[in-house]
């Protein structure tokens, strides 16, 4: 019996499995464990300068004290709900703008001559060579009331008093779209470049206008690129902290700021953890539903 168990154990940890084990372990240590710690914190309470442990070992008995107060608090204060909503709104706006600007750009790149494409990809990546923080600060100098944009518009006589652009939803959206645009362009490009041009020729031969061809052939075929790009933009945009801090105004409420307040101003790590867990669930839920729907429609296609 024991020998069989050992041999079974061995066969599991051999060969292919052993190779898979390393990345799996890596994922577990760097992604699952921190998440579990955060989950553990979210059921706890703050002491003077430490997080109370929910596990207690006394008199040969393990007691687990799960405090749901942090989660119940969400219902008592509309701040959290309003902030989640506003974060999702800004993330959605950012994603739509990125898609609207990124799609033509990716299309252009994919249709460019083959020897030019690496250079175009390079150009998209170029901003990453400068610090992210510096690039956001640059927008600040452009958008302030005595900044470049206002000076130019006033010199041209378009406006007479400087526009209030900084610290508004406008400046926030510009900064977010600017920062996340490459994450939309690159997956779209990777998808569009593989598009079979013969399909477009066939559509043209059969009398479809270029406009119709685009909507009936190109867009449906690039669906996966659109989804990948949108996810890459939407998910980090929801939790974005730096851009709203630098470019947003006092009325552009984002969940990153609320998290900062919980963690630093309130020194309440358990509450901050609860805010994070709810945020993850909020983002995860639509994605899982979407993936499930996507997988079903795919299997239907095959059937």
């Amino acid at each position, binding site marked *: 019996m024991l020998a069989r168990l050992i041999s079974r154990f061995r066969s599991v940890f*051999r*060969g292919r499995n*052993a*190779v898979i*084990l*390393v990345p799996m372990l890596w994922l577990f240590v760097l992604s699952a464990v921190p998440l579990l710690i955060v989950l553990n914190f979210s059921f706890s309470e*703050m*002491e*003077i*300068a*430490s997080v109370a442990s929910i596990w207690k070992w006394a008199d040969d008995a393990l007691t687990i004290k799960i405090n749901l107060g942090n989660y119940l608090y969400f219902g008592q*204060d*509309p*701040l959290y709900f*309003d*902030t989640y909503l506003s974060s999702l709104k800004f993330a959605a706006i950012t994603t739509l703008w990125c898609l609207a600007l990124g799609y033509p750009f990716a299309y252009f790149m994919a249709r460019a001559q083959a020897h030019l494409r690496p250079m175009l990809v390079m150009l998209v990546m170029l901003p990453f060579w400068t610090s992210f923080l510096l690039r956001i600060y640059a927008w600040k100098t452009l958008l302030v009331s005595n900044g470049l944009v206002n000076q130019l518009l006033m010199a041209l006589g378009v406006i007479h008093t400087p526009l209030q652009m900084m610290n508004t939803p406008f400046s926030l959206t510009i900064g977010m779209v600017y920062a996340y645009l490459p994450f939309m362009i690159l997956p779209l490009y990777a998808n569009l470049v593989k598009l079979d041009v013969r399909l477009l020729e066939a559509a043209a031969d059969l009398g479809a206008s270029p406009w119709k061809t685009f909507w009936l052939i190109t867009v449906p075929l690039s669906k996966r690129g659109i989804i990948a790009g949108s996810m890459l933009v939407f998910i980090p945009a929801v939790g974005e902290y730096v851009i709203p801090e630098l470019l947003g105004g*006092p*009325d552009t*409420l984002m969940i990153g700021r*609320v998290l900062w*307040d919980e*963690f*630093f*101003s*309130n*020194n*309440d*790590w358990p509450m901050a953890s609860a805010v994070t867990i709810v945020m993850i669930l909020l983002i995860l839920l639509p994605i899982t539903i979407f993936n499930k729907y996507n997988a079903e429609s795919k299997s239907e296609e095959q059937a």
Partner: protein
Amino acid sequence: MKSPFSKRLAVVLAAAVVTAGLASSAWADKEKVLNIYNWSDYIAPDTIANFEKETGIKVRYDNFDSNEILHAKLVAGQTGYDIVVPSSQWAKIQIQGGLLQKLDKSKLPNWKNLDPSLLTQLSKVDPGNQYLVDWLWGYTTVGINVDKVKAALGGMPMPDNAWELVFNPKYMAKLKSCGVSFLDSPSEILPAALHYLGKPPYSQNVADYNAAYNVLKPIRPYVTLFSSSGYINDMANGSICVALGWSGDINIARRRAIANKSGQNIEALVPKNGGLAFFDTMAIPVDAPHPENALMFINYILRPEVDASLTNTVFYANPNKASLKYVTPVVANNKTIFLSPEDQKKLVIPDAVNNDVRRVMTRLYTRFKTGV
């Protein structure tokens, strides 16, 4: 099939863990290194260089700009810093939470230079003065651009109490035209509003804070900027005319305006019922890797010349009685830096508030700022 790769990897990983553990514990004591975490723009240009030259200790000097950041680091532990400079009301919580270590005063011969009255005030948060040594101190108050405020107020006379300027909508409505800046922190604005109301500024009573919010709400439309550091420049170049800010910063704005010949006449006011004092204090974290070097540095700072050079640079008063004769006359005679005995008596000494009150403060401040 055996898998030599994963085996080798395990060996390498184990070796790395062991080496890292050994390195951190054995070397720390003998290292001639000192890691300091202090507020930004809060030191003289030659302070660190002179200390390094004299002792041969290499100093790494990092900056923060809010107590919240420092506190979170200390709570997380293993900061690697040997000296941190929390404000006293935060240090109180850190002492209670066991995050700081007691000072070995036998290594601090210059302790004798400290102003006894200041030590008494600090003993409110640090009984027996066992953990904290004041770095510099100042107070939260109102700073104005004298000419612009006069012009904005029109025929209205200046209020008797400087807090009226920033908390009374009657004045704020007029001042909006020339720009009003508030410090961007609940722990600065709410105590000031409570003090203006005549309630205890560090009250543990939630109802008091709701009353303070009712003072803040009507003036929100008139606050044009929330800033805890940028307002210095905005004051100096005249783009704001009133600031709820820190005394030394307002004096820095004043000096910059004079140096740039911008023609702005900046002045820090001393409110009739007192400003809100703050003491930024040197402390050694409980897990500091080089506590001996930290004590050497604290003793060095407490030399009269060194403390005086700090005050001469950043316009905050130091706790060092013996340093006064080294402070330049312009600074020493500035009654908003070294307060008169009457004004000093009226200063409100800061205290810590409990976690529930802090949550209420943050929440009310968010509502004040965003309207949500």
